[in-house]
């Protein structure tokens, strides 16, 4: 009777629809390029490769943390504790090596394990006790900041430990004086994190599970996916990334600041969302996050190259640029969607 096969091509244009899900990130990258060109056109030395390289150098920790945040946001959650966890990790590194005299390698390993475990614990509270992620991680924000301040209420130097020199050792690509640039090791750490995150999110069961849970947690549960493992997992990943961010911060400054990373959670969330992820979960890309971090970094680079703005005008200009950026992104994404249907 039915020998015809039933065909259907996708119709209703949703945000998830086919290629259109790449539009926000495409728009983001295009706008980044435009911003860069505007910068080179207006400011002396803006075109030096080192300026772009510095975006990565300066934002290595933020990038790592934002990648962790991407996992959480993709799963439909949020992690407000990352800034505090980062400060706590950096401080722990300092305390363990300076006060407790533990070898730096061991200290770093301990800190990373601690970050992962504490993230997993948060995830467990969120999943098993059904506590809203915002609340559970806000408690984390307070808790780790408090613990950091208990360890030390002033900044601690770790420069005497040779181990921490490694992070800022630079590799040169061409001669910096004529058109080359150099990158310190922390950038390679961040790069590795991005790469691994990309592979994990797109090519492993865990990663696809993150998207599924973000799409619909209930469906994922009924499909028999390991929802508990996934949810606990994303917070563990975020905890790990925050701890690693702390280690990278320790590398890059060779010190620990009890007030470091204040408000960093918002920067990370902003980067992820500007990179095209939906805060409701299920849609977004790690590479979008990278672009998001670049956007925020590029904005502040432009501000500092200009250097004529008072504190308040600088903020207002960042706001306006961000607004223009978001609106353009929306417009591009929308017209892209329209063309498709």
């Amino acid at each position, binding site marked *: 009777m*039915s020998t015809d096969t039933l065909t259907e091509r996708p119709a209703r244009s949703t945000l998830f629809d*086919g290629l259109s899900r790449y539009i926000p990130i495409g728009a983001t990258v295009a706008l980044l390029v435009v911003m860069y060109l505007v910068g080179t056109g207006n400011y002396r030395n803006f075109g030096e490769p080192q300026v772009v390289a510095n975006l990565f150098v300066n934002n290595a920790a933020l990038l790592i943390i934002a990648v962790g945040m991407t996992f959480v946001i993709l799963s439909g959650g949020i992690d407000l504790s990352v800034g505090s966890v980062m400060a706590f990790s950096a401080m722990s590194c300092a305390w363990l090596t300076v006060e407790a005299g533990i070898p730096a390698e061991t200290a770093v390993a301990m800190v990373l394990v601690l970050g992962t475990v504490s993230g997993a614990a948060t995830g467990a509270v969120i999943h098993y006790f059904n506590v809203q992620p915002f609340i559970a991680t806000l408690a984390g924000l307070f808790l780790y900041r408090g613990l950091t301040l208990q360890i030390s209420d002033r900044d601690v130097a770790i420069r005497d430990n040779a181990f921490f020199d490694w992070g800022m050792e630079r590799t040169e690509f061409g001669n910096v004086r004529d058109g080359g640039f150099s990158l310190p090791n922390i950038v390679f750490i961040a790069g590795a994190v991005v790469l691994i995150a990309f592979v994990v999110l797109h090519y492993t069961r865990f990663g696809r599970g993150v*998207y599924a849970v973000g799409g619909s947690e209930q469906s994922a549960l009924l499909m028999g996916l390991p929802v508990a493992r996934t949810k606990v997992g994303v917070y563990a990943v975020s905890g790990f990334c925050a701890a690693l961010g702390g280690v990278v911060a320790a590398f890059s400054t060779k010190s620990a600041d009890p007030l470091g990373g204040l408000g960093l959670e918002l920067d990370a969330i902003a980067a992820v969302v500007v990179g095209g992820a939906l805060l409701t979960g299920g849609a977004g890309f790690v590479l979008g996050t990278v672009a998001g971090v670049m956007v925020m970094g590029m904005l502040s680079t432009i501000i500092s190259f200009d250097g004529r703005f008072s504190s308040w005008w600088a903020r207002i200009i960042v706001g306006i640029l961000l607004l223009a950026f978001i609106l353009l992104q929306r417009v591009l994404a929308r017209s892209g969607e329209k063309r498709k249907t």
Partner: protein
Amino acid sequence: MSDEPIVQMTGITKDFTGVRALDGVDFTLRPGEIHAVMGENGAGKSTLIKVLTGVHTPDAGQIRLDGRPVRFNSPKAAQAGGISTVYQEVNLTENLSVAENLFAGREPRLGPFINFRAMRRRARALLEDIGIDLNVAAPLGSYSIAMQQLVAIARAVDIKAKVLILDEPTSSLDRDEVAVLLRVMRRLAENGTAMVFISHFLDQVYEISDRMTVLRNGTLVGEWESAALPESDLIGHMLGREAATLEQIERQAGEHKPDRGEPIVSAKGLGRKGSIAPYDLEVHAGEVVGLAGLLGSGRTETVRLIAGADRHDSGTLAFEGKSVGSHNPRTAALRGIAFCPENRKTEGLVGDLTVAENMILAMQASKGWARTVPPAQRSRLVAEFIEKLDIRPANPDLPVKNLSGGNQQKVLLARWMLIEPKLLILDEPTRGIDVGAKADIQRLVTELSGDGMAVLFVSAELDEVTRLSDRIAVLRDRELIATLETEADMTSEKIVDTIVAKGGDQ
């Protein structure tokens, strides 16, 4: 094959806050059989399934799988234990691709990495097997609900469990797909898979099932060999009332032909690029116009334009002779166009709100927020429609998400009937509704049109369309290909012929 039961549930009781969904129910599934679970909306069928598969924990009772006592604590555990399930609502993730949905949690891998190429290949093969051809790399959410249902079935079938549970898998499928599904089920049964099948379509149930268990109000009525249980008895067991009255209602529904009144809406060249080709359609007061077509033929798209849910980009729409300017769900509702969408979960109900609030929503929306529907009027209307549509439990203050699927559908219907529209657009209003309620709804539609309301009616069930409609618009490939007047000798075969004939033209 031994007759040792695969699944044996005894004395299952499940309480939800305020409702006893199951009360000491026994259920036995034997190897290789197809076992139908029957009952009205809210009888507890889905709950029984969910208790078995670890979504809910029973408050009392025992479950044995292959003779061993088990208690799954999640669907994942049930799957690992050999039970594969398609739940009543499509429970897949719309943001992932079709292929990923098919293989989520069991993706083919190369080392630790997913082998997307193999996954897509296997997905295509799997879908081909049940006769559908989709772009498996496209997000599932871009396909219609019927397609999603088929994908869910394909997924469950492919898991190759020893027990396959299908909770209303056919509610949005039309006859061809149903035929394919039944064929697949038979094949599985031959290979020894035991199946639980839940459906409100009695003909399908009789066609496929070996045995039936009937539930009513959370209690077990009994278990019968399908062959030994006449349909009228079955209905009697399910509803607890006489089947004869039911048939009468159905017949009544088929008998009406009032004069055609003023045109309420007329669409001229109405269309939307990439979604539905421009079409002309008129619906008159007191008339029921049915839309017929195969899956994905564009019925939903057609009515969404008229309802203002989507914007049309060609043609004009006139309402009561006046051409309409800005057209969106709000202005449509103000004019008296009610649109009851097909996907109740995502487009219809607000799960957290109560039954009463969901019912009153459209009426309140058209009044604006400042003018509240007076509480007295509100409770009167709500009570009236709870009774009229027999919504159970009859508690207007329950969050609507706690209702059974069929009862949710009735709440949605009530929302739109409540505003007494001039044009009522119903997209698959009888999805997942039990036989008794379906007859009630059909009668209601007939009554309303008798009172002068225009009704635009979409249903995958051609019989229903033929029985109710005064005229039938036939769609194929997102194009309106014919409008048939319903004569006395109208049959669903004629519609199918029309579709096939036009298809041959091309």
